[in-house]
């Protein structure tokens, strides 16, 4: 029973990591995409910078995917037999998944910043670099979230155990 609970908690952690990150990135990319369509309809030559800015909120989705894969490998669901997972380790995997999931909500804000940046680039193409920097600022917290999750996984032997 303990084994089953641990693995279930870990799988829920992986699901939260991927699921919340996917929703957040989807909204962020959507926000940026709506603005991008507005810019391109006016000036199709701006497709390049618009594409780069729209891609930025996707990274949180990648972090969510990475976190979920790490959990699933760590508990043996991927790449081998399912291990005996103590309930404590299951909670740790759940906690790691929640950290990644919640920190990926920054993708929504990043989408809004990217959308604004697209307008800025459309008006003054020379601001492309600044627009990227502003959008990347929101990314920092998603990276912190991923790092904390990795520390949790390493500390609880989900990774490298």
């Amino acid at each position, binding site marked *: 029973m303990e084994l089953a609970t641990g693995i279930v908690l870990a799988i829920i952690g992986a699901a939260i990591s991927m699921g919340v990150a996917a929703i957040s990135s989807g*909204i962020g990319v*959507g*926000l940026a995409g*709506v*603005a*991008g*369509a*507005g*810019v391109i*309809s*006016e*000036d199709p030559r*701006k497709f390049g910078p618009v594409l780069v800015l729209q891609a930025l909120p996707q990274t949180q989705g990648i972090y969510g995917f990475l976190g979920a894969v790490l959990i699933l490998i760590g508990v043996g669901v991927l790449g081998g037999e399912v291990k005996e997972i103590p309930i404590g380790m299951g909670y740790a995997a759940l906690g790691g998944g929640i950290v990644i999931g919640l920190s990926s909500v920054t993708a*929504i804000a990043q989408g*809004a910043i990217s*959308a*604004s940046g*697209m*307008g*800025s680039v*459309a*008006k*003054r*193409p020379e601001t492309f670099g600044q627009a990227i920097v502003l959008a990347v600022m929101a990314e920092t917290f998603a990276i912190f979230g991923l790092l904390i999750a990795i520390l949790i996984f390493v500390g609880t032997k989900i990774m490298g155990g």
Partner: protein
Amino acid sequence: MIGDILSYLHVNAKIMAKEGKFISSRRWEDLCGCSSPGEIASLLEGTDYFPYLSERAINEAGELEKAILEEFSEVEREISKLIPKGAWPIKEYLLRRWDVINLRTVMRGIHGGLKKEEILDSFIVGGELDFAFLKALTDAEAMDDLVTLLARTPYRSLRDGLDKYNESKNLFFLEALLDKIFWEDLLLKVLRPRGLREFKDFVRISVETHNLKTILRAKDDRLSSEDTDPFLIRDCRLLNELLPAYAEEDLSGLINLLEDTIYFEPLLGGQHEYEKTSSILSFEEALDNLVLKKAEEIRKGRPFGPGPLIGFLVSKQKEVRNLLAIVRSSELDLVRDEIRESLSSLRS
């Protein structure tokens, strides 16, 4: 919150892209040196105005002016289609402006005794009034006929200015009434939907400047306050503050009455110009510049809502007005510095 952001994202990004295509400072400099419509037309190559220039526009200033206005009308029509449903008063503003412009064309045409074809040729497509209806308006031979034809439109109350017009043959009475109908109706409508705080602020300042322009023009024409009052929009805080005293004052006195308001400094600047040129346009330009400044403040105040849209519309209007001034100046054989002086501040 996301809903608010999302509904304006597309249109705001589009208008920022349009702002990227505003005429640059260097091109303004070149435009100021033009001495013919053909030169102006060639300098407009690569801008959004160029596709609207016909063969006639290259040779005739009037046609060039029309082409510039047609582009402006098309931009506003395009934007009106992208405005979120909840912001319908902005859409009405964008479309009905062109009705007012076309109605003014008819009124000026009738007043100046122009031929039906000449009036028809000056129309700019883009408003809510059907073009066939506008065409029918050109059948009017007198102002009374025109007002009768408008009986089933929102402009029916133009009949209230008819007697004064017929007495004085001063078009001011009808033009001021037309503007009053437009702004008063918009002011009523903009109060209904929730949100749109920025647009409400813009309409309020536009109403206040409309009232001030009407009062200033009336003072310049030495009209009495009894003549002017029917053309003022009553639902205006500034007017209510001015009302007890403004009738007794001359132009300088009126400006002094505004000392504690945002209008004082710009009007004082306009007064210096007025003393030199005796043209009321200096006040109107000062007030228009103030509206532009306020629109910029509104834009910066809420970059995700209708703020950028309002900022764009006022800036575009300014660009068009400056271009039209250049086209008109080119026919008057003015030197570059004089043309530059006649323009409102140039935008980069």
